[in-house]
């Protein structure tokens, strides 16, 4: 193998500089702040050691937010992948209306999460909500859907999954189009059925795409913020909050910047751990094409 010119390493410098400026430095600041009691804006900070981290584990609202974050992360990943793969399989062949389905599936991504949340808020709201207008046709009275935390969490999960399923569709479509047709032709000659083809050819060869889609969706779901803010604002109470919205709430509204930073560090470590486990799992599963 030809040895790489060492001077080419200099090309890393711009990226490293920017990464250092916008990721490493703020992250180091966050670690520092997490050991202080600070309101987020005054020039005075009081060192409190590990107290903020201890408080995190005794905060019931944090655990609600953490549980919701897992629901948003894992739930969105499952729903988006199932829906994305189904649509990708549907549009992988040429037929009339194929492009229309692709466009319709991808279109919600073009709307910001915040706007999508507001649209859905007007759909689900108690007064003049579209859903209540629909059930009124069948003689039912209006319901305050989002008052129920379980419905609130489900609504956020479904809206987010529906909005970003198009991303999965694109990833799977690219993966499907990379699978050589010869495998299917050989299987057809051997008389293999469609489901068996999918189970033994498509699915194993899609593992690199599944790996990419799952990790992207999982990280996206774990970092969910904007839809929650506009759809439920984390309420009622803190019942639909994710860790990200809870961090923002603690930092800016409750003026507990040190505590919010401690939560940030904890969730960073959690996402890092999950990403490493997922990566190593899919690395083992990937099939060499």
């Amino acid at each position, binding site marked *: 193998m030809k040895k790489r010119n060492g001077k080419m390493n200099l090309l890393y410098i711009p990226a490293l500089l920017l990464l250092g400026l916008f990721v490493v430095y703020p992250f180091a600041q966050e670690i520092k702040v997490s050991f202080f009691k600070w309101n987020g*804006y005054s020039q005075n900070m009081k060192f409190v050691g590990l107290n903020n981290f201890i408080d995190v584990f005794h905060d019931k609202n944090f655990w609600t937010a953490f549980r919701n974050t897992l629901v948003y992360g894992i739930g969105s990943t499952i729903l988006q992948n199932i829906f994305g793969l189904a649509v990708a399989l549907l549009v992988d062949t040429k037929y009339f209306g194929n492009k229309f389905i692709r466009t319709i599936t991808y279109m919600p991504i073009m709307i910001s999460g915040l706007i999508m949340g507001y649209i859905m808020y007007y759909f689900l*709201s108690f007064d003049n909500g579209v859903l209540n207008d629909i059930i009124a046709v069948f003689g039912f009275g209006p319901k*305050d859907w989002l008052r129920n935390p379980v419905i609130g969490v489900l609504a956020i999960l479904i809206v987010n999954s529906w909005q970003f399923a198009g991303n999965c569709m694109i990833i799977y479509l690219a993966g499907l189009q990379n699978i050589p047709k010869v495998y299917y032709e050989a299987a057809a000659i051997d008389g293999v059925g469609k489901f068996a083809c999918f189970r033994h050819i498509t699915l194993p060869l899609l593992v690199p795409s599944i790996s990419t889609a799952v990790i992207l969706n999982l990280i996206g779901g774990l970092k969910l913020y904007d839809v929650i803010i506009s759809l*439920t604002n984390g309420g*009622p109470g803190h019942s639909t909050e994710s860790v990200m919205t809870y961090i923002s709430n603690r930092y800016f509204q409750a003026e507990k910047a040190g505590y919010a930073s401690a939560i940030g560090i904890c969730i960073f470590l959690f996402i890092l751990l999950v990403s490493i486990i997922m990566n190593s799992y899919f690395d083992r599963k990937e099939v060499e094409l």
Partner: protein
Amino acid sequence: MNYKNLKRMLASFMFVPLLFSLMSCSGAGADNSESKNTSDDSKTVSVSKEKSTSKEDSGGGTSLEVAVDLGDFRLDVFKSIIADFEKDTGIKVELTAPGPDYETVLKTRMASNDLPDVWTTHGWSVMRYSDYLMPLNDQDWYDSVTDDAKNVITDEKGDIYVLPATVGISAVMYNADVLKAAGIVPEEIHTTADFEEACEKIKASGVTPIFIGGKEPSNGAGFINTYLLPMMLTNDGAAYPSADTLQDGTFDWKKTGMPVMQKFADYVNKGYLNENYSTADTAEMQKSLGEGKCGFVVRGILNLAAAKSYVPDANLGVLPVPYYKDGGKNMFQVGESSCFGVWKDTKNKEAALQLLDYIATKNVIPELCETEGSVPGLSGISYGDSYATEAYYTSIKQFESNLIYDNVFDRQYFPSGMWNVMSEATTEIALDPSKEGVKSAVSLLGENFNDNMKKLIPVIKRCF
């Protein structure tokens, strides 16, 4: 490609991003006060037709950064005022209006000690921003500041830090048609008992008595801050007079805080509040008032102006907060509305003060009053064609003989940092109005009150 060419290409490639990095770093380092924290500004509105990249533009004119907590129609009016100012003075203004994130942006800017040249202080000119603002007692307009405004913007040294273009009023707002249909005469509501009787009648007529948009929990905090806490604790005729103990930090939350918050739970249990408390937002609250879907909304009368903008033919009015015990007085809360302060370290002091002068003297305050439903903070200035302000003055005439005015409750009687706690406590009770729910909310209020008081007491001791 030979080695020399590769080196040239590499050098060019690295030079461009490095140059950008250095430019941005040196820009911030050379004059920290002039760097723009654009990442924080979710909505930056450049009023100038010609964009300028620094505060000193190439033509030698000054460019001011102005941050305001205005949104919707209030922002539109302010933008036109700023456009006229630019035309008159040649000073360019970069107007930043981050909307609901305004406080967040300002807190971030304070943390980095990099503030706009001029900003609105939304009630916190003394307690939060005075360390960052320049005193303005030497300005020409100072003598015109009304006593109401002076009461809420003057610190213990007698300094003011803002031009109080307008002051806001917090009170009880009502839909006159709803009250009439329920057989209620608004000006006969003087006491808590009268108010609760009115709620019963409105409920009996099939309308929600009180609407709170609790999706934004600060509306719940606004309700107890305007109505419940002053009526029960600090007004003339309060159920448990506690102004002194609140201010010296000895207030007994278990003994006295409990019945106060129980009152809020009683309102929930009696069905006085809207069914969709926890999911309705502010716009829905304002529309409900305008459309006659509720009898009362309690907060700043800006909400009345907004309700009127949604339903122009709505018949709305204003009432002072009722008193609890016979012989007490009705109360209006007076606080900062559009109040403009100047950063003490601004490089554009003259231009910033010129903007304040312009607002004070060029007859723009009536326009602000019209959109905000607020009252001029300078004497001798009309409030324009403001429906909400007119309703407020009508109410003053009706209750004239028995009125008191006080600062906004939390700014006067609570340590800083309690607003979010009040929001959480009201939401908690709205979701669980049982004895346990009230107990938990009171304990939350008590713990945070004591904690924040501990931080405040050394400051008070230093001041006196």
